[in-house]
């Protein structure tokens, strides 16, 4: 009994001691905050963006009584600023944060081990190998997906601010910084279309992202869902072969 009072680990009511797990602090507070703020901003952007392209049913009565499109666009632009400023902050954090905070910006395609892992994870998702590998940061396939997402995010920020600059005008800083988008697509209609397709690619990314996170949490014997809340990755048991 005296021994038990000094015990640090977990026990059950019968005195059975739990096994300690390997735990690594992966996602720092800044990274986790960015993830959730980003998720929220993207949700707002997706919904309001869809409603800008396909507005709600027409409002009856006098125009002076409503500001429906005005509020929807305001929400879209505000969330856009949150996303863009958040992204700049995240970019900064890649420099000052831990080694895992840099991952999504730099897929190490030059690394043989990384490429091997990419193929292995692909096989794992195609049910061709029995067991998944454990990774402290992102697994190579997830890593590649995250880096692609960053590219789409940059694309959405550039096209988004370019479209926004149409309202703020040719003399605005938005146009000065992002007006080059119209050199690629002189007709802004095309920029709208691409921005729209970008939105849908993020929707698809989100579906896969959530599915993979839940599936990995169950099957890969390592935490993913709780990791983005607490920042810690817990590695559970290994299979014996």
């Amino acid at each position: 009994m005296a021994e038990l009072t000094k015990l640090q680990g977990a026990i059950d009511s019968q005195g059975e001691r739990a096994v300690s797990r390997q735990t690594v602090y992966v996602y720092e507070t800044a990274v986790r905050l960015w993830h959730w703020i980003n998720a929220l901003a993207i949700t707002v952007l997706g919904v309001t963006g869809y409603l800008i392209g396909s507005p709600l049913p027409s409002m009856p009565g006098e125009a002076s009584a409503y500001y429906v499109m005005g509020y929807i666009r305001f929400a879209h632009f505000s969330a856009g600023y949150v996303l863009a400023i958040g992204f700049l902050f995240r970019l900064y954090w890649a420099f000052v944060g831990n080694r895992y905070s840099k991952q999504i910006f730099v897929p190490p395609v030059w690394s043989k081990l990384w490429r091997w892992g990419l193929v292995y994870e692909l096989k794992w998702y195609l049910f061709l190998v029995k067991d998944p590998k454990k990774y402290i940061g992102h697994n190579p396939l997830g890593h590649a997906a995250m880096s692609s997402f960053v590219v789409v995010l940059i694309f959405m920020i550039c096209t988004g601010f370019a479209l926004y600059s149409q309202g703020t005008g040719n003399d605005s800083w938005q146009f000065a910084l992002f007006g080059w988008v119209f050199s690629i697509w002189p007709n802004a209609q095309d920029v709208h279309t691409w921005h729209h397709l970008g939105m849908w690619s993020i929707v698809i990314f989100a579906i896969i992202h959530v599915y993979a996170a839940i599936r990995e949490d169950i099957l890969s014997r390592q935490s993913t869902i709780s990791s983005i809340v607490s920042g810690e990755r817990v590695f559970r048991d290994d299979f014996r072969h």
Partner: protein
Amino acid sequence: MSAQIETFYELIRRQGITRRSFIKFCSLTAAGLGLGPAGAASVAQALETKPRVPIIWMHGLECTCCTESFIRSAHPLAKDVVLSMISLDYNDTIMAAAGHQAEAILQETRQMYKGRYILAVEGNPPLNEDGMYCIDGGRPFVERLTEMASDAMAVVAWGTCASWGCVQAAKPNPTHAVPIDKVIRNKPIVKVPGCPPIAEVMTGVITYVTMFGRLPDLDRQGRPKMFYSQRIHDKCYRRPHFDAGQFVEEWDDDGARKGFCLYKMGCKGPTTYNACSTTRWNGGVSFPIQSGHGCIGCSEDAFWDKGSFYDRLTGINAFGVERNADEIGLAAAGLVGAGIAVHAGITAVRQLTAKPRDIKATTSDPTNPNAG
């Protein structure tokens, strides 16, 4: 033709126009060009001292709507004045000369006013079959165009044809018609898009160039900022209905009668840069949206190829199927969702049917070398 051209002021005084009318015109022009309070004096000074600028107006693949628009400039004085202000030496639609006599003017102007004349181009050159799809005076238009451009002071691209390509350059563009800036590379070009451009915009640009001897400030796409820096949407009188969320849903509904926003009917006002909603047409009478029809975006690049004029979202012709971004996105998301459902199903079945395996507990390792 004499090399010494009289000034505009001398010409109109000779025609019996009073100085008072002249000053009025200068103020009107300065205001129209957005030159500010001091503008009128500089306009007057330019018109009194500078010789009139010879203009060569060439026609490639086009429909002449630019010329038609130009000669209908709203203010009658402005029209007369502009036509006499410039020395319109060659315009095969409205000139008196014909045949060899007309052709001679081109070479004469080119030699006599080398580097001093303005080349205005309506329409564009087709490049396929060595330009044989547009023969003008027995030669491919593209040859004559580049020849006349080589000695011009500046080039004005009239309308969407010369600026962007317009209908003859729409897919599949069998004649390979190209905007003029694809064949004229070494001269300053001002693009004045629109199908046709607004008359007042055309006269405004010509007035500016002839008066000040240089092109007006251009935007990133080479259009004069004074007329093309805002979208139709930005100055549309139906904009409050857009902000309120009041839309025409069908052509004969209550919203259409009340003049609600035409956004859902495919109005391209939000992506079209032009002066229609401020300057309007036919002496300020109306413009398409005021007449109850959405903007078709005629001053924008490739506006023929952006799907229906009546769709909000552009059709994307992918895999031979015409769908908009939402339909494609939703289909792709649905496919991915279905794929994930199947994947999750296979995963679950494999987990349930798998033989139970020994699990080796990992021992704790407080000194993890990999921890960041």
